[in-house]
C-alpha cells in the first residue's frame, strides 16, 4: 500500500515545500503517543545536538534573546529579487514567542505574515532570500543556549530535522501542501517515518487517531483516500493533523481555520489549546480573524508592509490599541450586530506594495492622524510606550 519512493510533485513551489518540509529524521520525539518510539539509534539526535553546540560555541553572544523565549525573531528581512526590482516582503521584524503561549500575528493581506513564517523554517521560494536577521530557537529554555537557525543553513541536517518535527507548520493553502498523487495515509506516514521511530502499523494507527482528533468522520477509510476527496475544511484539518502528529515544540499556524465553520473551528482551537497545555507547545498563530485572536492569543503582533507596528498582550490590543492602523483594524471587524446589506467601514486608500514603500511611516498615506512634515519624512521605530506595549508611530515618540 505504502509508496516508499517519493515522486516529484508537480507545480512550482509545492514540490519545493513538500520536499523540504518533510525532510529527514528527527529522533528527538516528545509526548506520550510517540515517546515509546524513541530512537535507539541516536545518530539523528546527536546530529541535532552537535549542530546546536557548534553553533552555540561559535558564538553569537550579543543577540538580545528575551529571557525564556523558545523562538525569538530579530531584525528579520526577507526580500524577493524580481525582474521589476526588490520586494521587501519582510523588512525588519522582531518578536518573541514563549513556551506554552500563543503569539497572534495580524495584518493586511500581503504585509508579509506568511513570508515571515516561511523564513523561520527557511523555506522561502526563489527569487526570495533572507537577507538579514536572527531566528533564535531555544528549546531547552536555558539562558544562552539558543541557536540561530539561520546559521544552521537551510539544507543542513539539523535544520531538516527541526523542520516538520520540532517546529512544524500548518500552511495557508492546504490543497497545495499535499501531493495529489498520494493518499493522505501515505503522506502522514512519510512525516512520521522521518520524525519518529514508530513501526508502520503504529504510524497508521497514529494517523487514524489524528484524523479522528481533528473531527474527520470515518478516519480509517480516509487514510486510503486522495486529497481531492476531502472537502476544503477536511483538508485543512488533515494538514493540522500532519503538523501536530510529531508533537512539535513550536507550531506555526498560518490561517489554520479559514476553511472551517465556527463549530469545527471551536473544536480545533480547543484541540490546539489542549496540546499546548500538555506539551508546553508555543504557537505562532497567523490569522486575519480578530475573533479567533481574541479566543486564542496571549500576545498580538500587528504587521504593516513588512514591519511590526505594534506588539503587546491581547487585552491591551483590544482595549487600548495604540497604532492608528491597529485602531483602524479593530473598527472594521464585521460583527454579528451589523445589520444585513450594510456597508462596512474599511480602511481608506490602497495598500502600497512592498516594492514601492511610501516615504517615512509606511502607513502615512492612509493614516487619520498623519502629521505633515513628520510622518512623511522620518521612519518611526518600534519602541516601548508602557510596560507591555511596543509601537512604532510618531504619536508616541518620546513618551
Amino acid at each position, binding site marked *: 500500500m505504502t509508496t516508499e519512493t517519493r515522486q516529484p510533485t508537480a507545480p512550482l513551489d509545492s514540490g519545493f515545500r513538500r520536499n523540504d518540509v518533510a525532510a529527514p529524521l528527527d529522533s528527538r520525539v516528545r509526548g506520550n503517543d510517540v515517546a515509546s518510539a524513541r530512537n535507539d539509534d541516536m545518530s539523528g539526535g546527536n546530529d541535532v545536538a552537535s549542530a546546536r553546540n557548534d553553533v552555540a560555541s561559535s558564538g553569537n553572544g550579543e543577540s538580545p534573546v528575551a529571557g525564556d523565549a523558545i523562538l525569538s525573531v530579530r531584525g528579520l528581512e526577507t526580500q524577493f529579487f524580481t525582474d521589476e526590482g526588490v520586494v521587501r516582503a519582510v523588512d525588519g521584524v522582531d518578536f518573541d514567542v514563549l513556551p506554552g503561549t500563543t503569539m497572534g500575528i495580524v495584518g493586511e493581506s*500581503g504585509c508579509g505574515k506568511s513570508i515571515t513564517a516561511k523564513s523561520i523554517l527557511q523555506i522561502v521560494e526563489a527569487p526570495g532570500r533572507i537577507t538579514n536577521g536572527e531566528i533564535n530557537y531555544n528549546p531547552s529554555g536555558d539562558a544562552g543556549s539558543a541557536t540561530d537557525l539561520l546559521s544552521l543553513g537551510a539544507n543542513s541536517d539539523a535544520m531538516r530535522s527541526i523542520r516538520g518535527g520540532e517546529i512544524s507548520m500548518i500552511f495557508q*493553502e492546504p*490543497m497545495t501542501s499535499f501531493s495529489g498523487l498520494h493518499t493522505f495515509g501515505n503522506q502522514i506516514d512519510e512525516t512520521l517515518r522521518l520524525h519518529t521511530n514508530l513501526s508502520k502499523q503504529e504510524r497508521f494507527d497514529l494517523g487514524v487517531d489524528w484524523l479522528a482528533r481533528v473531527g474527520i468522520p470515518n478516519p480509517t477509510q480516509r487514510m486510503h483516500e486522495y486529497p481531492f476527496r476531502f472537502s*476544503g475544511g477536511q483538508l485543512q484539518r488533515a494538514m493540522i493533523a500532519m503538523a501536530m502528529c510529531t508533537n512539535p515544540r513550536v507550531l506555526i499556524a498560518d490561517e489554520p481555520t479559514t476553511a472551517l465553520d465556527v463549530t469545527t473551528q*471551536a473544536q480545533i482551537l480547543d484541540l490546539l489549546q489542549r496540546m499546548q497545555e500538555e506539551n508546553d507547545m508555543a504557537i505562532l498563530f497567523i490569522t486575519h480573524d480578530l475573533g479567533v485572536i*481574541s479566543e486564542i492569543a496571549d500576545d498580538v503582533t500587528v504587521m504593516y508592509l513588512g514591519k511590526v507596528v505594534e506588539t503587546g498582550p491581547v487585552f491591551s490590543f483590544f482595549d487600548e490599541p495604540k497604532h492608528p492602523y491597529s485602531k483602524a483594524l479593530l473598527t472594521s471587524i464585521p460583527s454579528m450586530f451589523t445589520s444585513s446589506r450594510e*456597508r462596512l467601514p474599511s480602511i481608506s486608500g490602497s495598500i502600497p*506594495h512592498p516594492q514601492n514603500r511610501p516615504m517615512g511611516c509606511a502607513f502615512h498615506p492612509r493614516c487619520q492622524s498623519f502629521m505633515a512634515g513628520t510622518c512623511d519624512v522620518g521612519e518611526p521605530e518600534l519602541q516601548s510606550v508602557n510596560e507591555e506595549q511596543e509601537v512604532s508611530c510618531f504619536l508616541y515618540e518620546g513618551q
Partner: protein
Amino acid sequence: MAVETTENGNGSASLLDVRGLVKYFPIKRGFLRRTVGTVKAVDDISFDIREGETLSLVGESGCGKSTTARSIIRAYEPTAGEIIFKTEDGDSIDLAQLSLVEMRPFRRQMQMIFQDPFSSLNPRMNIYEIISEPLLVHGIGSSSEREDRVAELLRVVRLRPEYMRRYPHAFSGGQRQRIGIARALAVNPRLILADEPVSGLDVSVQAQVINLMMDLQDELGLTYLFVSHDLSVVKQISNRVVVMYVGRIAEIGTPEELFDSPKHPYTAALMSSVPKPHPSQRTKRYVLEGEVANPANPPTGCYFHPRCPFATDQCKVEVPPLVKSKDGRFVSCHRADEIELTVN
C-alpha cells in the same frame, strides 16, 4: 422521500431553482477499486435563488456546500435532481439534463469562485492570462480591449494593474483570492457561485470585497450563491440563508430570522459558536458535543439526533421533512414549533 420545494410565492422570479439535488460519491477500495459504499455528500436538497439576491449556504465543514455549488455548474455530475435555470430570454431550462456541450453557453452566465485559490490558478499562466481566459474562451474583445478589461478588474479587486504579467506564486494568499474574484467577474456573469471568496482576507480587504460585491449586485443585478463559514459576513451580505447539515437542509430563512430566532437546534448551535470579538469573553467557548456525522454512514432518523439536546425517540427513527413552519419559515425538525431556542 417527500421533497418540499421552497416555493417562493413568485415562481418566475427565481433565477435558479434546485429541486431534489442528490450527489453521491462512490467509495472504492483495494486493487480492483471495488465500490464499498457511498458518501452521501448532498442528499436531496431543494432551494431557489431569486434574481438579484444573495443566497448563502452555511454549515459544518464537509456538509456538502462545495458539492452543491459544483453540481450546479456541472463541475460534478449530479446523481439526481433538477437544476432549473432561467435564461436571458426568460426560458426555463434544466441544466442537469444538458450535455456538457449544450451547457457551454450557460457557462458564461454562471461563474464560480473556487474555494482553494491557488490550486484553481494555473501556475504557468500569468495574471493577465488567467483573468482574460474566460474572455478569450467566449471570444470577447480585441487583445487591447482585453488588457484594459483586466486592468480595470484588477483595480476593482484592489490589486495593482502593473502586476498583470506576474505569476500566481508571487502573490500572497489573499491576493490570489482576489485574482480568482477578478476572473469570475470578467465575463459579466448573471450568477456567481462564490465558494469561500473572502475566507483568507483580512477584515479590511474583506470589507472592501464584500462592499464591492454588493455594489456590483446593485449596479448589474448580479445574483450570488455565497458559501461561507464567516457568519458575520453571511449576515451582512445575504438576503436568505440555507443552513445545511450532513448533506441536507436544516433550515432556510433571512439572516435576521436565523440569527435572532433560530428554529433548528443545529442553527442555534452554529450561531452560539461565533467567537466574540473580545478576549474577556473567551471562557464560554461553545463546543458542539458528540461525533460529527459520517456522510458514508449517516445516523438514522434526523441526522442531527446524536448531538441534539432535544432529541426524542421519534427523532431517532423518522427523518424530519423540510416544512414550512407556522410563521412561514422552512425548517426540518420534528420539534421546531415546540422548542424555544436562544443564541447567546
